[in-house]
């Protein structure tokens, strides 16, 4: 379906499919619908445009700290200092184009020795890389004057005197140009050529990430959500790289038409920022999440950035030691799918009540040093204890149990409401299994099975 964005009855942007029907930016909506009756039109949303631009700028900050916004649709970056790190201007430009594509945007990118020249080249649709000042003049000379001067009056006047390119404009006498078109036009030319400095405000990448993406249509399956989320996660990675930070968790919010938004929290075992890692975790999480309703838009939120420096390669170029990192990733994947409580370590807890003599440990948490020695304890603990039948005072579990050792009396916990008073025995079942059973102290003490000596 062809799509376009319109503001005040005019098309201001359209996709390739709409262009094949003959729709063009600047065209009236009525004319556009005449060309393409099925054209799907969105109202122009300035805030969303600004947010997208800032998202791209934040992502760009991973390549250089000197990124500047050129609203409404431009981002400029000074990459001189980063060329060596990213192996040259051509490789860097390629990487930027690739990233913008992955974020789901399309852009025209150009590189030149001055910011203004690069902006003009991109504005004229020239995807070129001008290597030095010597080549700059020739590259600019061929550009249409429209990139340099705004205002239809000046443009009309220039056209009337037969000036269509920057080169021709430079050929005119300076005083006359300044008088007719204003000093600003000449200043712009000098800045583009690098003869005059052009101070710019630099963009500061924000300390948190919050980006929303409207889906082109309602999505009913997890794969579609994942595809869209990936675009935002690429953006997140760029921002995190720019801030030399990582996150321990992030939030995916699914926005529906009717139902309340559903939020999925993804936790990481160790701070990270790699898109692929995020996507993998999200895939596992989405696999077990049932979509209550079709999804209209998604939002990804991440805050609490923690410092995380780029991975350093060791002296011989090897990757980091696989074991620990691989283990952390494994835990993180298991938790993403099975739930946070499904994976835990075991620790001792100084406590007499058997069910409280241990506690689950979060992954990575070191167990406290061990408690004192106790009587024999079973390897399996039943939680909760299972009530046993009793016949003639003898506990039964598939037959009468034979008490072999005991009792070990455990009475504790009167102070916190979890009071127990039990006599524990080691018992043998007819099946030869050794069981850990107890009888509640009291008049009609019932028998319970609490553990198995496996």
């Amino acid at each position: 379906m062809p799509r376009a964005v319109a503001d005040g009855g005019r098309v201001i942007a359209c996709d390739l499919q709409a262009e094949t029907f003959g729709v063009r930016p600047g065209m009236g909506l009525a004319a556009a619908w005449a060309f393409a009756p099925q054209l799907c039109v969105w109202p122009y949303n300035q805030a969303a445009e600004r947010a997208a631009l800032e998202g791209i700028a934040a992502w760009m900050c991973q390549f250089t700290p000197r990124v500047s916004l050129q609203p409404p649709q431009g981002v400029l970056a000074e990459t001189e200092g980063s060329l060596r790190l990213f192996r040259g201007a051509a490789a860097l430009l390629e990487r930027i184009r690739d990233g913008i594509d992955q974020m789901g945007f399309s852009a025209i990118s150009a590189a030149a020795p001055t910011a203004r020249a690069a902006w003009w080249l991109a504005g004229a649709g020239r995807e070129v890389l001008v290597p030095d000042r010597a080549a700059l003049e020739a590259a600019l000379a061929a550009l249409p004057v429209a990139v340099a001067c705004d205002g239809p009056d000046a443009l009309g006047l220039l056209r009337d005197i037969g000036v269509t390119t920057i080169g021709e404009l430079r050929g005119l006498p300076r005083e006359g140009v300044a008088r007719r078109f204003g000093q600003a036009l000449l200043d712009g030319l000098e800045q583009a050529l690098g003869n005059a400095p052009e101070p710019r405000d630099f963009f500061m990448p924000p300390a948190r990430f919050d980006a929303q993406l409207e889906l082109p249509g309602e999505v009913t399956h997890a794969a579609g959500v994942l595809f869209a989320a990936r675009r935002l996660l690429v953006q997140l990675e760029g921002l995190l790289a720019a801030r030399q930070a990582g996150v321990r968790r992030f939030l995916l919010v699914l926005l529906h038409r009717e139902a309340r938004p559903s939020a999925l929290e993804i936790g990481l075992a160790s701070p990270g920022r790699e898109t692929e890692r995020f996507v993998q975790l999200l895939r596992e999480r989405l696999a077990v999440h049932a979509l209550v309703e079709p999804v209209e838009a998604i939002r990804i939120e991440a805050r609490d950035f923690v410092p995380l420096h780029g991975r350093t390669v060791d002296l011989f170029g090897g990757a980091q030691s696989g074991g620990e990192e691989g283990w952390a990733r494994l835990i993180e994947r298991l938790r993403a799918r099975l739930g946070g409580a499904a994976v835990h370590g075991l620790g001792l807890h100084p406590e007499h009540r058997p069910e409280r003599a241990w506690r689950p440990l979060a992954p990575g948490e070191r167990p406290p040093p061990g408690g004192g020695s106790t009587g024999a304890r079973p390897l399996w603990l039943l939680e909760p204890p299972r009530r046993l039948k009793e016949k003639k005072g003898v506990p039964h579990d598939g037959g009468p149990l034979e008490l072999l050792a005991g009792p070990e009396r455990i009475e504790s916990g009167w102070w916190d409401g979890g009071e127990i008073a039990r006599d524990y025995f080691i018992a043998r079942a007819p099946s030869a299994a050794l069981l850990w059973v107890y009888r509640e102290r009291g008049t009609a003490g019932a028998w319970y099975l609490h553990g198995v000596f496996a």
Partner: protein
Amino acid sequence: MKTSLADILSQRSVWRGGALAPEPGRTVPTGFAALDRELPGAGWPRGALTEILGRREGVGELQLVLPALAALSASGRRVVWLAPPHLPYAPALAAAGIDLEHLSVVHAPGRRDALWAAEQVLRGGGCHALLAWFHDIRYAELRRLAVAAETGRGVFVALFRPAQAAHEASPACLRIAFEPAQEGLAVHILKRRGALLAKPLGIKIERPVHAVGGTSFSTPCARGPVARPCPA
């Protein structure tokens, strides 16, 4: 040219029925000399499946693997207990010499989740022993796990399954069945890389009481079938 029989036999291409496949460095000693003697490579195989089949729990089946787990965890190797039927009890594990720092428990509610988790653990790296409990698992799924175990870096995989599984085909390279016996367990090696073993092995394992004859050694107070209440 005359070739002696010994020359032929010394070639790796000839396998003699009575011999065990040598697997140097690819095993974990079980801690039971009698069992080590009968296992190829003198220990639990790594990078392959081991099945431990038993009819009932509570007869000391976990004791079979505990010495190996204790040795692994003591040297800083990670051990994962996947989908255990009950809660592994930390005080007993610590008493058995297992370093709890290197032990993780993974609960998987469904069969599919458990299989997925097992494969993730085997392929993920960073884990050196996996104990998993499966009630029913199909041949194709076992096969998948076996492949994952081979790609994993030398993980000792012990699958605990019910005794009925002994009649099903399995890609595991070692299958043993146990049953209670005097002084411990009788272990049948159903399958190994090598000749069949007809006779069950008697393995002496640690029990909390000397169960022979039903005599209690810790407290004489509870002798007999009925526990007399002790004076408080």
